[in-house]
């Protein structure tokens, strides 16, 4: 075994770094941390860990303004999902996540794998998923490809959720031309765990085995830039980066197997392999625990032949998890994963070096100190420009050209308000036998917790055109609407997750929208005692060089002490209608 991996030639390395999205000064930091040129595999690790997606480098300074604490918050942002105490020793675990870009490339699989990813974030923490929701923004139906995108996304969400047997109980849909080339697919999962049995990602215990479970690793989703790399000589068709395909069947087995293993005391830490799968999971687990980690990549279950270390570390193959087990518990875990017909492999162990060391085919492929990989990660306070205030309209000065009846008909028939039945008619909202209010039946969906009187009320909300006009008010409004929707069902609103979908953060007006939306959300969260416990940021959503509408989607969760308190929408004859609040 050599002491340093095969290094890239300096010029080549700098050129590849740029192709992988690292800015020149970011690459200089890579050189400073390593004290030498990187290997291809190391460069891949830096580029994904320091990508906007993994590092939140443009958004982190703003997200810090969101309130994240309350007596009932068990776990705020920073883990795979947020956790709140809902009484009776139970916890609700939830998060929302975007899969915008993949859903435009391949709508069915993009949306399906989005659902798969968010489910894993939740059951990783020890929770059984009990509900899925979504927040969708499409372009106009007559825009090129948009009908196929809409159809594919809806089928994909249903195809995955129905198969894993988690009811899809709510969501929202908007249409606007600014999403024509960049639809938004945000998926939310809510799970239930015992409050004293929450699993996290922080690794501990020198020598403890690192275990890989789930599906095999293929070349799925490895970023396109690698195609240009001269490292690869085989025919291009074979090496093409491929779209990730979801396998909800395997995910279902993974849920059952993980929950079965979690009922034992074998697990030290667990993390799903999301974007940049093996890289982010191993780096984060070791990093959070202040440990080192050493992996033997030959032991990674592989679907294809001839995979390189770089490819394995960057693969986005779905339905995979990484775990740290207590010493000697491998056989317990292996028996469970074998029973569920899933791959199981011990691929490495924890060390006390504080470094990630990767070996493949008897060669050292990467050796990076973990602390600076995180502490030196780029962090930007990008310039912001305030959205100009618009003059307030004088309602009295606006003529009514059509009369209330025609106006009502136009509204009811409009894309944003017409019935969504054709969507939820494709989603199994009843599986589990606990759905007390399905889509269309109440302002928030209501799902009872098995073997309990309690129920959760859940909703997703955002009105992007408000956010465009005034991002701060729009951010406030989205949080307030989620709160109202929960209240209206008889639930006590407890906490939110969010999905911040915005355009290019390098444009001051976009960063200004982002900052203002966060400010508004924070104000509403504080006023309503409705903290943020998890979330996701999706930037660079551009359509024809123009940003999408600023879309801070909010996923709200509340609790009902007794499902019998649930209130729905259906009016019954003889009741009085009461209007509350100023009109």
């Amino acid at each position: 075994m050599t002491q340093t991996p095969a290094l890239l030639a300096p010029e080549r390395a700098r050129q590849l770094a740029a192709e992988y999205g690292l800015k020149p000064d970011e690459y200089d930091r890579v050189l400073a941390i390593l004290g030498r040129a990187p290997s291809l595999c190391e460069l891949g690790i830096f580029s994904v860990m320091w990508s906007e997606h993994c590092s939140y480098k443009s958004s982190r300074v703003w997200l810090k303004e969101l309130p994240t604490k309350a007596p009932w918050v068990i776990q705020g942002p920073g883990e795979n999902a947020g956790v709140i105490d809902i009484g009776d020793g139970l916890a609700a675990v939830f998060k929302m996540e975007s899969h915008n870009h993949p859903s435009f490339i391949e709508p069915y699989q993009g949306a399906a794998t989005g659902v798969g990813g968010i489910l894993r974030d939740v059951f990783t923490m020890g929770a059984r998923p009990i509900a899925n929701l979504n927040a969708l923004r499409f372009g106009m139906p007559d825009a090129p490809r948009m009908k196929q995108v809409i159809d594919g996304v809806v089928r994909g969400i249903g195809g995955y959720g129905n198969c894993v047997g988690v009811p899809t109980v709510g969501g929202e849909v908007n249409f606007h031309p600014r999403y024509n080339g960049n639809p938004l697919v945000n998926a939310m999962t809510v799970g239930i765990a015992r409050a004293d049995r929450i699993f996290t990602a922080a690794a501990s215990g020198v020598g403890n085995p690192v275990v890989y479970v789930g599906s095999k690793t293929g070349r799925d989703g490895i970023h396109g830039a690698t195609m240009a790399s001269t490292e690869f000589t085989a025919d291009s068709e074979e090496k093409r980066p491929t779209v990730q395909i979801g396998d909800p069947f395997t995910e279902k087995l993974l849920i059952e197997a993980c929950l079965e293993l979690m009922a034992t005391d074998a697990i030290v830490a667990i993390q799903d392999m999301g974007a940049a799968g093996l890289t982010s999971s191993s780096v984060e687990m070791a990093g959070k625990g202040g440990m080192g980690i050493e992996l033997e990549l030959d032991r990674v279950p592989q679907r294809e032949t001839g995979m390189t270390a770089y490819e394995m570390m960057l693969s986005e193959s779905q339905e995979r998890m990484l775990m740290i087990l207590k010493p000697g518990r491998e056989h317990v875990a292996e028996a469970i994963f074998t029973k569920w017909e899933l791959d199981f492999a011990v691929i490495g162990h924890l060390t006390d070096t504080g470094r990630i060391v990767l070996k493949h085919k008897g060669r050292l492929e990467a050796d990076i100190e973990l602390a600076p990989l995180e502490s030196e990660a780029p962090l930007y306070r990008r310039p912001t420009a305030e959205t100009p205030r618009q003059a307030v309209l004088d309602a009295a000065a606006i003529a009514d050209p059509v009369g209330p009846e025609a106006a009502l008909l136009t509204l009811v028939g409009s894309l944003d308000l017409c019935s969504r039945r054709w969507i939820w008619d494709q989603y199994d909202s009843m599986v589990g036998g606990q759905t007390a209010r399905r889509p269309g039946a109440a302002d928030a969906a209501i799902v009872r917790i098995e073997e309990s009187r309690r129920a959760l009320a859940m909703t997703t909300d955002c009105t992007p055109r408000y956010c465009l006009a005034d991002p701060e008010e729009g951010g406030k409004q989205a949080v307030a609407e989620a709160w109202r929707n929960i209240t209206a069902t008889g639930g006590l609103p407890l906490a939110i997750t969010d999905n911040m979908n915005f355009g290019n953060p390098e444009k001051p007006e976009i960063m200004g929208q982002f900052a203002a939306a966060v400010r508004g959300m924070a104000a509403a969260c504080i006023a309503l005692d409705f903290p943020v416990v998890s979330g996701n940021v999706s930037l660079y959503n551009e359509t024809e060089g123009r940003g999408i509408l600023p879309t801070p989607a909010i996923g709200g969760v509340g609790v009902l002490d007794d499902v019998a308190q649930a209130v729905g929408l259906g009016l019954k004859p003889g009741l009085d209608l009461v209007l509350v609040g100023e009109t």
Partner: protein
Amino acid sequence: MRAGIVLFPGTNRERDMALALQRVTGHRPEMLWHRDTALPAGTDLVVLPGGFSYGDYLRCGAMAAQSPIMQAIKAFADQGGHVLGVCNGFQMLTEAGLLPGALLRNATLRFLSMDCRMRVERTDTPYTNRFQRGQVFRSTMAHGDGNYFADDATLERLEGEGLVALRYATPAGEATAAANRNGSARNIAGILSPNLRVLGLMPHPENQVDPEIDGTDGLPLFESLAATLATAAA
């Protein structure tokens, strides 16, 4: 009643079914594993629950129908045992040859998750004796492949022998095309074996057993079973 619910890889409505059975019997049924080669002694009801066994890959229920436990279930049915297959379970029963015909892709080519209504065609069976003859009850369906197909000779035989248990119908009890969302032959929602002890149906009456969740329209089916099997055991 001693009931067993079979778990296949990908099954997902086993807990719904367990709750429904618990409601009528007061105790939890046993979960059985697809690799088992024998049923627990004293079993008098086997349920093949809904879900996506083997991901619905190839054909719904096809791989599950080849599972080790299916041999034991066939033998159990041959000896007069009661077998209930719901949704994916119905698909398994046809794939395993325990019931005739097949479930094709829905005529709409879409997954259908919605309310449906079924007319009870006969009430002298272990599954329907607590319904009124011709009674229409509401249930939910959630399937992509529920379009019942059999050749004409088979359909004639089923009709002639009175083995059609449930038909999709309007609230007024008419078996119209509009009430038949998945396109099933002759609006068939559920069929029986000649000895009336094997029932396969596509909708999910196990989701309509609780007034706090979605009403109790499906409860008579389970009450019928409980009554039948309580008498049988006595």
